[in-house]
């Protein structure tokens, strides 16, 4: 039987004249919403504008502030160990922090993330991430096995990634085609160097670059890499290939929100060297994902912790002591309650602390002041049909244009089992890494949704001719302080470590900021560690 499928294309779309797009978009851009991560409340707190005095006092053993992955992980671990006397308060209207999401009830086309969209296969050291995945039925068998079996529905379906370069989509994100021999050789040498770092261990057997980062070797031959930038390290090692520089810069912006020049070399290398997770049923570079990004984990944890979790609850004042006194503004009830608690788990960004708390130890204040944050923009485009066009590899889960200031887009419906080409949602990511954080925040807040939308449509319209006409909505989410920046020196040579050892009694940090890296594994580790300390007392 002769199958001339290609003729179908010719007869269907070429020989017959195509009717020009009949439906014109209106003068502006498609409609949509401009959201943010509690901007107004945050500024009210920063400016110390008054809230009404507390009308009620509540006593609880443990109060967890923040329902991001850190706070949810702390609650999950406490609940798992049979401890129930805790409450989680969250400023936003929904849990999740950087992993928050929109579900099908809000966007009927598809659930989609408002932040992080994947979790790499957990490393050998990320024991609690593995426990969590096993608990959520995404990992079968022994969670600590060298090569566990992951749920195929959660593993990113093929094709996972593609890169648009020189008018051609190529598979994977590492530039390959059309590179001079010297550049290809450099990329190979770079990958070999990263492989050496991946397997490097110190005399005590600790990995040079572990995830959680706390478990890495303190040996100065590696830790001192934190003193220089990733750009310096590449230059010192003789890496000059523009394609390689783009690739490493892309990785730094994607994971840290910082450019090569602003990223500590320790952090930059850590990105490539820490991942040693493997699977029995997937390649080691596979990732776990869902239409709502990491939101599937948030949903599952929030369901389990429904009795303890209160959203729309903003901490407005913290007084460490015995007990701690914490005032919480309940937006829906427009009143303030005062919590008295033995344990306080701070699972919110560190930079908020000095605005809310008095009598903090000096090292902690120093650490919060030293922390700098990268702002992010996440736009969700709801499309009537998938993006078409472009020679080369077909539409993948993650689609990245080479040389863009953005980070490309992820297809929310990628994990669906559907024959029909239906509507979809693309999540477009942009770390505002090319300006200093304060200026970048000005840009982020000073730019209207319409202008962001127009610029995104401009960029994606060049990649996909049908995209501008197919776009029905563009919802823009602004994260003013999305990620703590691992700038040179910040991880191992700043005030961070001293702050961790100088916390008031019963005061625990359970945010990824405590690690200096805005990663799921770090948040989960900090959350479980805080819970463990509470359980031990």
């Amino acid at each position, binding site marked *: *039987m002769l*199958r001339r*499928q290609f003729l179908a294309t010719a007869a269907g779309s070429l*020989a017959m004249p195509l009717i020009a797009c009949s439906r014109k978009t209106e003068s502006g851009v498609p409609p949509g919403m401009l959201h943010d991560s509690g901007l107004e409340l945050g500024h009210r707190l920063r400016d110390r504008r008054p809230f009404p005095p507390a009308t009620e006092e509540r006593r609880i053993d443990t109060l967890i502030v923040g329902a991001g992955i850190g706070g949810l992980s702390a609650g999950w671990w406490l609940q798992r160990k049979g401890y129930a006397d805790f409450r989680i308060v969250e400023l936003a209207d929904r849990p999740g922090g950087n992993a928050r999401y929109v579900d099908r009830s809000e966007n009927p086309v598809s659930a989609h993330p408002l932040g992080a969209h994947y979790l790499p296969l957990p490393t050998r050291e990320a024991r609690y991430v593995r426990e969590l995945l096993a608990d959520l039925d995404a990992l079968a068998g022994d969670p600590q096995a060298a090569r566990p079996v992951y749920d195929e*529905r959660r593993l990113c379906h093929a094709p996972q990634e593609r890169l648009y370069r020189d008018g051609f989509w190529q598979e994977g994100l590492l530039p390959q085609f059309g590179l001079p021999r010297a550049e290809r050789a450099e990329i190979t040498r770079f990958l070999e160097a990263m492989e050496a770092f991946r397997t490097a261990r110190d005399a005590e057997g600790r990995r040079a670059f572990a995830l959680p980062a706390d478990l890495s070797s303190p040996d100065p031959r590696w830790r001192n890499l934190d003193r220089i930038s990733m750009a310096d390290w590449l230059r010192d090692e003789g890496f000059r290939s523009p394609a390689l520089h783009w690739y490493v810069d892309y990785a730094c912006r994607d994971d840290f929100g910082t450019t090569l020049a602003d990223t500590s070399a320790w952090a930059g290398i850590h990105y490539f060297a820490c991942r040693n997770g493997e699977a029995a049923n997937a390649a080691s570079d596979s990732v776990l994902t869902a239409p709502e990004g990491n939101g599937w984990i948030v949903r599952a944890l929030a369901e389990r912790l429904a009795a303890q979790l209160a959203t729309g609850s903003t901490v407005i004042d913290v007084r460490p002591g015995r007990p701690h006194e914490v005032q919480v503004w309940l937006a829906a009830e427009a009143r303030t309650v005062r919590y008295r608690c033995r344990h306080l788990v701070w699972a919110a960004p560190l930079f908020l602390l000095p605005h809310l708390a008095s009598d903090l130890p000096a090292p902690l204040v120093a650490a919060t002041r030293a922390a700098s944050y990268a702002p992010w923009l996440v736009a969700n485009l709801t499309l009537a049909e998938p993006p078409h066009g472009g020679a080369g590899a077909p539409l993948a889960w993650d689609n990245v244009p080479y040389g863009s200031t953005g980070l490309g887009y992820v297809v929310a419906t990628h994990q669906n*089992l*559907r024959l029909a*080409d239906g509507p979809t949602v693309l999540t477009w990511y942009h770390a505002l890494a090319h300006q200093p954080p304060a200026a970048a925040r000005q840009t982020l807040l000073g730019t209207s949704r319409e202008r962001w939308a127009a610029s995104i449509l401009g960029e994606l319209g060049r990649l996909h001719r049908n995209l501008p006409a197919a776009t029905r909505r563009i919802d823009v989410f602004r994260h003013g302080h999305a990620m703590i920046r691992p700038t040179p020196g910040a991880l191992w040579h700043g005030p961070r470590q001293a702050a961790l050892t100088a916390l008031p009694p019963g005061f625990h940090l359970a945010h990824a900021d405590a690690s200096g890296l805005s990663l799921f594994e770090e948040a989960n580790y900090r959350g479980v560690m805080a819970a463990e300390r509470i359980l031990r007392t």
Partner: protein
Amino acid sequence: MQEYPSPPADAETLGPRERASPLQVALLASVFIVAACGLAYELIAGALASYLLGDSVTQFSTIIGTYLFAMGIGSWLAKYIGRDLVGRFVQIEIAVGLLGGFAATGLFLAFAGNFGPFRVLLYGIVLLIGILVGLEIPLVMRILKREVEFRELVSRVLSFDYLGALAVSLLFPLVLAPHLGLVRTGLLFGLANTLIALWALRLFRDQLRRRRGLHLAAWSGIAVLCAGLAGAGHVTTLAEGWLYADDVIHAENSPYQRIVVTRWRDDIRLFLNQNLQFSSRDEYRYHEALVHPGMTMGPAPKHVLVLGGGDGLAVREILKYPQVESVTLVDLDPAMTRLFSAAPLLRKLNGDALAHPKVRVINADAARWLEDGEQSFDFVIVDFPDPSNHAIGKLYSTGFYRLLDKRLRPQARFVVQATSPYYARESFWTVVATLEASGFQTAPYHALVPSFGEWGYILAARALPPLPERIEVPTHFITPETLPDLFRFPADMARVPAEPNRMNEQTLVRTFEREWRHVQR
């Protein structure tokens, strides 16, 4: 003449010493058009070849190579044109206009109608057009040489040559190919070439002998090309008619596919996106093999599910078993199930199966329907299209079979159409490995369906019952005695090692594409 873009500010660039004469301007404008047409034919041939033959990088490289080589021949041949330059130029323009203009139409029809070796025809036409285009520029230069100094001449002619090429290289992918299609674009550029011939005739009316003949040729060329433009829409219909060889008795575009039904005497055929789905002469072989082994092994199924198979032919076979209480047919395309419930000829073919009271027709995406529903079944027929892309490939994965498993009753089994174990041997055995990795016992088998070739099926269940000793319902192909033969694979279709197809890897799509590429010409 104003319709052609005149070179911007040409008078200034030429300098005060020699202002361009109207004749020069006209000739340079014609260089622009001629160059534009030349590149357009090259792009059309390249695009057509990549759409028809696939592998666009190869097609474009070889077409461009051939074309440049042919232009070289043309330039070399130009020196043998001694006298009557303008007359020759006009002839060449008319010839290029007709040949280039109809190239896409001709090649398209030739491919559909299967006239002779397509590649020979393709490169032959590209070579001819290339030679003629190669003649154009040297001739224009020699005509202009009488008017302009050599150094100026070369730079000016080449500038317009490249400008024309630039214009088309931008217009072609952005405007022409998507909005007009290749056939019309070709004809339009052909028309431009013949208009240049006409224009040249007017400009050089004083120098030309034999004007009447050339005029006649040019006007006939224009007429033929205009007729071509008017009838371009019919070319598709005509090509489709030849492609199917038989009379098209139904054709429609649903949101999901192009459905075409053809008939020649008593042979009715269904094509979806040009792929043959069945021929009424031998479909009983395909459908009996698909349905009866699974229906008759083990306890008699009461509730049967068919995924795909909107033509109702598998349902017809299932309904032969009186103990069946319900048949649920899930097919994505309402146009398919509507057609096979409405058209008398097709209803006769499926025994009006879709209207049977036991049958429930659901138009839904199969996997979504499985995810969302609850009902479970004794026997499931999985009759999806071949795994030719990633979306379909997921329906042949361990993840999909685990999803299906949730809808199986105790002692249930299912059968999967799994492409040809002869043409796509590794693909077939990949599906077997996938079912095994999903925790099922499998019984792969095959049947010869003349219009398809050797076709492959896989029965699967948590525990497979033995093959039936009797088949109670009337059949034309399957008999209890010959049934065991279907489960034996000759050496050229025997099992080959294959990895299971997982959604996160999708090895099957690659394997399938590689294997079918060898089969296609």
